[in-house]
Every structure is written in C-alpha cells, then in structure tokens.
C-alpha cells in the first residue's frame, strides 16, 4: 500500500452503531472498513487534526505497543465531540504516558499478580455463592445485573481496596451510579462523592494502616491527590468492567445454548471460555491515541498531532487472527485477544477479572439448570457501546 492509496480515498465517517438484532456484533460498517482499509482517514471538520480509524488486528496491536502513540487525553482529538480532550484526572492511569505512568503502575503490579489473584479464588467462590443464594430467594424471575453481575466484582474490589464492610452498600451504589449511570450530571456528582470518600479513606489509612491495598498505597510516595485519584481509578476500573462481562456474557451464553451446555457439562472449559467471551464481547471496544511524531501506519501517512481511533472489538473479530471470528466458540484458542488492551497499559486487573469470571459463570450455570431469559432477547436493554458495552438489565428466570 502506498500513501497515494490513502490520498485517493475520500475520508469516511462510518457508523459505529451495532447491527439491529445482533447485540454481540460490532458495527458492520467498521467490519467492512477493516477488510478494505484497516487504517482509514475519518472525515473531520475543517481545521481539525487528522483522525485515523484502525480496525485490523495487527495494526491495532502495533499502535498499542508503540510509544509514539500517546495515551494522554490532551493529545487526542475526539472525533465525536470535535474537540481535544481535557487531561485525565490525577491518578487515572489510562490517561498517562511513561515515565509518569510507569511510576504509579509499578506500585500496583505487585498487588495484581497471577499468584495473588488466584489466592482470591476461594473468596470469590464465597461471595458468588452468597449472591446466588440471594438470587434464589428473590426469584424467579430476577434481574441478573443488580443481584449478581454487579455485586460480585463490587464486593471483590471493595475488599481488595479495604473499604469497611458497613459502608459498602451505600458506597457501591454510588459507585455504580458514578460509572454506569445514564445521566451524565448525576454520574459526575456520584463520581465526585465516591472519589472524596475514597480519598478520605486512603488518607485515614496513611495514619492508621490496615491490611489492604489502599493501606499499602498510603505507605508509598504518592501525594495525597495521587492517592485519592488512584483509589478512585482502581474502583472504577474494577467495578463496571467485570460486571458488564458477567451480564453480557450470560446473555451471550443464553443465546448460544450449545455453548452454554458445553460449559455446564464440562467446567474444565472455563478458562478458555472466559478468554473467548472476552474476545467475542470486547466490552471496552474503542480507544484513542495521540500521534506524537510523524509515522507511517499500514501505508497511511500519520502526522504529529493526529489522533488514532482504535476498534478493539473489530480487531478481535479479524479473521486473519481468529478464523470464523463471529462465532462464539468456547473451545477455540482466543489467546492474543485484545480485550484487555496491549502495550504498557494492558489491564492491570485482568487476573482479578479472570478469577471472578472463572468462578461466577460456572457457579451460575450450576445453580440454575433451567436458567433462561425472562423476556424476548430483543427486549434486553443494552448500554451505549462507548465507553463500556453491556446490558442495563438481564431479566432471567429458572
């Protein structure tokens, strides 16, 4: 491919909308674009920097691994709101570049190792069992999201951070509102409340440490603002992500009964099943990077100051990497999927998410052998795909 190839093509503005009636599939226009132009110039208003959409697996991976593509929000032009983004709040690792990013991430990686997270399996099992007990008492029917999908990861991350048990309910309610609400102003206000609460809690642990992650961080060289910011970031990152995977993942399994039956009959499939659900659903589906210097990407001439939009969900359906990508196949190897990203920002909490899902999906299927949707599938309310896809509620019966 040559630069001429791109100059000869008009900029495009494909629809990011998911196809009607196929809630698990990415935008068909983005899929089509991936086949024609895995790096495509997007149409933007006069005077805006160049904005490029990257949809091919190899190229998305390349962008995520290359330090010439910046995560700092202020380097990124948002093609939907037509302006540059404000800088990330203090402590938000997703909006930082090395070395500032490295300094904070290094404080956290030891707390989220494979070994440490696997040690939480037993606790995840207890929490999951308690929630299934509640669900069984309350129903049928029940809305899986508030009774199961949200509280399991919420309780896990709260215990890990060291949020006192008595305060947990009000706190997680505000936190869900903060990260998952439809009303932007209410969400922002709730986020501010939760951030303030966490900041106070973390600062209190500075004086009087307990045995938890916030206390460990309180003993580090983070400033008070950074400590509060990192705490809020970790909570936000731990709360809605796995919750959406459990909700949307259950929906996907219920819509693929042969796959569900396979997992129920052979719980040994669970590790691969979780990876495949991550790939297939790719709930964190779209990211931005700012281009720091001129660089050629897949033949396209990117300039310093341009912005790159990456479609993780479309990349995870790239047939060059995953044959028959639109089928949910729990027995395939989904290794290499980009659902947790790639590069220095790859999800810090991925092993925690895996433990939660490996416990929760099989336990749910085992507890309710007759689990099924309580409404027609087209009536399951879906979230906006950006920033995080999922179901708003999942009415089930058994």
């Amino acid at each position, binding site marked *: 491919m040559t630069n001429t190839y791109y100059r000869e093509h008009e900029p495009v503005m494909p629809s990011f909308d998911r196809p009607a009636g196929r809630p698990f599939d990415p935008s068909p226009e983005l899929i089509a674009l991936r086949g024609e132009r895995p790096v495509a110039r997007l149409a933007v208003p006069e005077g805006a920097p160049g904005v490029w959409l990257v949809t091919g697996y190899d190229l998305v991976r390349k962008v*995520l691994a290359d330090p010439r593509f910046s995560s700092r929000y202020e380097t990124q032009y948002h093609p939907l709101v037509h302006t540059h983004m404000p800088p990330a709040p203090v402590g938000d690792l997703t909006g930082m570049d090395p070395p500032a990013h490295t300094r904070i991430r290094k404080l956290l*990686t*030891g707390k989220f190792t*494979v070994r440490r997270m696997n040690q939480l399996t037993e606790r995840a099992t207890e929490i999951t069992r308690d929630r299934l007990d509640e669900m069984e008492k309350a129903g049928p029917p029940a809305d899986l999201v508030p009774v199961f999908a949200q509280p399991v990861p919420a309780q896990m991350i709260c215990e890990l951070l060291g949020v006192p048990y008595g305060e947990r309910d009000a706190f997680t309610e505000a936190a869900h509102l903060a990260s998952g609400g439809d009303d932007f102003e209410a969400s922002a206000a709730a986020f501010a409340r939760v951030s303030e609460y966490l900041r106070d809690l973390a600062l209190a642990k500075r004086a009087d440490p307990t045995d938890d992650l916030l206390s460990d961080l309180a003993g580090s060289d983070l400033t008070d603002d950074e400590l509060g910011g990192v705490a809020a970031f970790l909570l936000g990152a731990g709360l809605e992500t796995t919750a959406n995977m459990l909700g949307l993942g259950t929906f996907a399994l219920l819509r693929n009964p042969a796959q569900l039956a396979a997992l129920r009959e052979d719980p040994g499939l669970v590790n691969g099943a979780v990876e495949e659900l991550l790939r297939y659903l790719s709930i964190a589906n779209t990211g931005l990077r700012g281009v720091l210097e001129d660089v050629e990407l897949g033949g396209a001439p990117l300039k310093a100051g341009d912005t790159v939009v990456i479609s993780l969900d479309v990349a995870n359906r790239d047939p060059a990497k995953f044959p028959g990508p639109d089928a949910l196949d729990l027995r395939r190897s989904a*290794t290499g999927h980009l659902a947790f990203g790639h590069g220095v920002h790859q999800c810090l909490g*991925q092993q925690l998410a895996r433990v939660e899902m490996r416990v929760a999906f099989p336990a749910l299927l085992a507890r309710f052998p007759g689990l099924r949707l309580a409404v027609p599938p087209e009536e399951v309310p879906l979230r906006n795909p950006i920033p995080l896809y999922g179901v708003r509620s999942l009415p089930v019966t058994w």
Partner: protein
Amino acid sequence: MKITVDQGRCVGAGQCARLAPDVFDQREEDGVVTLLDPAPPPERHAPARDAADVCPSGAITLTARP
C-alpha cells in the same frame, strides 16, 4: 529453545505467568517477570511461545538453540 526476559521492559501484566507458569513467574513486590526455566523442555515450548507472543511489552525473547 532459549528464553531471555527484559525486566526493564516488563509491565507486570502477568500473561506469561498465566500461560506458562513452569517457565515464567512474577516478582512478589512489583509483578515483574522472573525466568524459572531459560531452556525449557519441548513440551513447554508451545506455552512459552504463546507467552512471548502475547507479552504486552515485548519483554520476552525466544531464540532457537544454536
């Protein structure tokens, strides 16, 4: 197969320790990769290759033994 790791590049995501736990581990204090077996037997080559392939920071290098 000979394996080397670059601890300075590692971002502690843990993919290697998950995929090939007989070959890679993570340091307790900061999650950085440690190498348990720099010259693994053939049955561990496939998981080691997966680990090197998916490493988010490119911290793992595999070379065929001379």
